[in-house]
């Protein structure tokens, strides 16, 4: 009987994506798409800066900043990282490393998530706070609040905050 339940009910993963930098966009999208490939049901709740990952105008232009970031593979002192244009330089470098390593782009991974029916939820409250309109975001998501996410997440086997 237990086996049957496990057989019929897929595992479920619920992710909160709260960051909008290039590096922090990857974990939710990679884990969500892979989880579906592992036959799980997945939802991502985009809140605060995480909304940039599903913002039509921003999702292809996510950046990584060298300022206050001691983990850049090529270390950049803060007094240089704070110079105009350094975020652009760091982002270009990161994108070229990723490209050379055969890593999918953020738009590619987002499209994979959409194709694989990952449930995408945009946080209504933070959209209002940040002045983001429904039409700024990709069509394939639903707008909801904490309760919308929690209704899905209450049955989750895995929950992650990114």
């Amino acid at each position, binding site marked *: 009987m237990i086996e049957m339940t496990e057989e019929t009910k897929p595992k479920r993963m619920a992710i909160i994506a709260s960051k909008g930098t290039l590096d922090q966009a990857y974990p939710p999208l*990679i884990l969500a*798409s*892979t989880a*579906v*490939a*592992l*036959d799980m049901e997945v939802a991502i709740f985009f809140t605060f800066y995480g909304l940039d990952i599903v913002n039509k105008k921003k999702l292809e232009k996510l950046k990584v900043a060298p300022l206050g970031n001691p983990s850049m593979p090529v270390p950049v002192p803060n007094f240089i990282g704070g110079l105009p244009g350094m975020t652009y330089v760091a982002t270009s470098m990161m994108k070229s490393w990723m490209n050379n*390593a*055969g*890593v*999918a782009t953020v738009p590619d991974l987002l499209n*994979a998530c959409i194709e*694989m029916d990952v449930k995408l939820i945009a946080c209504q409250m933070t959209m209002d706070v940040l002045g983001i309109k429904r039409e700024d975001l990709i069509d394939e998501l639903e707008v909801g609040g904490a309760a919308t996410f929690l209704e899905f997440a209450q049955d989750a086997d895995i929950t992650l905050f990114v």
Partner: protein
Amino acid sequence: MEANETLDTSGLSCPLPVLKSKKKIKSMEVGSILKIIATDPGSGKDIPSWCRVTGQELLETAEEDGKFIFYVKRNK
């Protein structure tokens, strides 16, 4: 080993070999065999994990010229 279809993911990184394997095997008939070629070093562990979690059968693995080769039978 004879495979019904082959998927070459050479040059692609995590998670693409797994995503593409999933998409490919869904298009094949139950009982048929998919040969997966990957250069992603992580795929050596990821493809077997994917097989275990999704109930597909990993028949054989090999390494040739820095490439990982997997033969996976679609069980369900």
